[in-house]
């Protein structure tokens, strides 16, 4: 073992496997591989059943594939898909911001602030989102105008609730306020997961509380926050189908039902809507994958950044994936897709 200080620098795949390759002189094991006959049988049965189901579905008239094809890219549908996406994005962004605020409030030493956050959670988590959306739809009956100013004095600004808030806005408000309660708990769990020593070290360096939060605590809690938040985004995408309670009827699900009311054929349009939901969900999952990778830097040892370099994980893959890395050197950094999945058959 010569001076690990010098060649441990992560200079590249060429130098690092050389070190642990020292024991490669030993005789490779020659053995007949263990067979898994039942796995094979099970896989074949599954494939056959699946294939039969597909063939069956393809010829079953109720699915009405021509209609599915006709409406999949219908302008009304694609526009509604966009509206659903907007609902999701706006609601989630507001929910995350509000969730962070609520989480910090719940961790505050001030008992008033703390109870306020707790009360918010109690109300918004304790009632069904469908009911909340319905109430938001009726808000103009409860508060006919919105006044801004000093209480009991003539308001500076006043506007009609109905005119100020569209059903779209009400849908976003309803969805985001409900979601914020869940996000608050997710963020709180993330903040608590960060070691207390981190805050102490940052404070001791003279960093302010907000710097400590934004530079030290939050980035580390991201690793804990992102996976469940990904779930929440996907869940939100689907929850948008409830905005009909407001009533707001330009989202994907409402639109596809409206169309099927004209065609008297609901099933193909349900399939159309499902395909769009699945499409968005898939995109979100890809996004989540990259976000998780970004925030695993330095912590997720399984996927060391190039900078993390020379230590143990790399040489191992260097040995097992040799032929593959020759074909496509680019896959080395994003190693997850493909390599592991081909195996089971």
């Amino acid at each position, binding site marked *: 073992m010569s001076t690990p200080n010098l060649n441990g*620098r992560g200079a590249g795949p060429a130098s690092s496997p050389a070190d642990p390759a020292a024991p490669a002189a030993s005789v490779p094991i020659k053995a007949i591989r263990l067979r898994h006959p039942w796995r094979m049988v099970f896989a074949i049965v599954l494939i056959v059943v699946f294939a039969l189901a597909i063939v069956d579905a393809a010829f079953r008239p109720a699915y009405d594939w021509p209609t599915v094809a006709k409406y999949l890219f219908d302008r009304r549908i694609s526009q509604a898909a966009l509206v659903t996406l907007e609902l999701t994005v706006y609601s989630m962004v507001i929910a995350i911001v509000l969730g962070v605020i609520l989480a910090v409030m719940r961790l505050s030493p001030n008992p008033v602030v703390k109870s306020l956050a707790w009360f918010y959670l109690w109300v918004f988590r304790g009632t069904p989102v469908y009911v909340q959306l319905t109430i938001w739809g009726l808000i103009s009956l409860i508060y006919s105008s919105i006044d801004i100013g000093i209480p009991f004095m003539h308001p500076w600004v006043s506007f009609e609730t109905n005119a100020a808030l569209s059903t779209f806005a009400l849908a976003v408000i309803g969805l985001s306020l409900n979601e914020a309660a869940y996000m608050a708990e997710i963020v709180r769990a993330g903040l608590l997961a960060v070691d207390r020593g981190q805050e102490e*070290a940052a404070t001791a360096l003279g960093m302010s509380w907000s710097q400590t939060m934004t530079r*030290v605590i939050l980035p580390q809690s991201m690793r804990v926050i992102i996976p469940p938040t990904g779930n929440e985004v996907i869940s939100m995408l689907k929850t948008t189908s409830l905005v009909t309670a407001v009533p707001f009827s330009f989202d994907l699900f409402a639109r596809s039902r409206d169309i099927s009311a004209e065609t008297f054929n609901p099933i193909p349009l349900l399939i159309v809507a499902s395909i769009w939901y699945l499409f968005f969900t898939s995109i979100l999952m890809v996004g989540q994958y990259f976000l998780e990778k970004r925030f695993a830097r330095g912590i997720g040892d399984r996927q060391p950044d190039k900078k*993390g370099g020379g*230590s143990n994980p790399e040489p191992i893959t260097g040995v097992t994936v040799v032929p593959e890395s020759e074909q496509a050197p680019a896959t080395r950094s994003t190693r997850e897709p493909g390599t592991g999945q081909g195996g089971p058959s």
Partner: protein
Amino acid sequence: MSDMTTPGAASADRGYVPMVLAEQVSKSFGSHEVLKSISLEVKRGEVMCLVGPSGSGKSTFLRCINHLEVLSAGRLSVDGELIGYRETSGKLYEMAPKEAAKQRRDIGMVFQRFNLFPHMTALQNVMEAPLRVKGLPKAQAERTARDLLARVGLAERADYYPAHLSGGQQQRVAIARALAMEPKLMLFDEPTSALDPELVGEVLDVMKGLAKEGMTMIVVTHEMGFAREVGDSLVFMDGGVVVESGDPELVLSNPQHRRTQAFLSKVL
């Protein structure tokens, strides 16, 4: 410097200001009194070693010095500046968090468990405070950070994340990180206790180097060899009080107090 302008620094007039002056410092957690009227003085350039059994309040005392804990009673000043309070015409005013943060910049702290920021490389760890707190330009911060890493023998590891460094290397990065703020006082809380025995030496060597350069240091440690060789003074604490203090050589070879004797017979 700033101590000249501080009204509270009465002793500044006499021309001598100790780096740390603790006067009857007490600290309680609820009804549990952890520090009981501790008075001590650390001179400029002095290396004070703080020893004592677990739970005797050593960490708490260190944390009081940079206001991570708030005193219950007594006064504590660093370089003539009262910690955590402003004194105007005989009255004490609690400091705003911002002012307290400003005081902490001049006091470096090194922890038993390193507490490096795991999502930043060694270099980024060292650069973080100069960039965000002092507002240094990036190029300058990076140059100083690289110099500091070289000083603790880790120039080669600047781009490594803490998870890929050994304990000894992590602790050296942590020392470099504290030095990056150019502190006038360094606090070490058992800096080698979490290390494998063979890694202790490299960290102690860095600390010896610092002491030689004249850094004022308070070191909580169980390394009596270090205390003897590098320490200018040794303070033995037990049960929240200073039991015995003096020249390390004298205290270690000829402890006067029963409790000191009992403790030393266990560690030596």
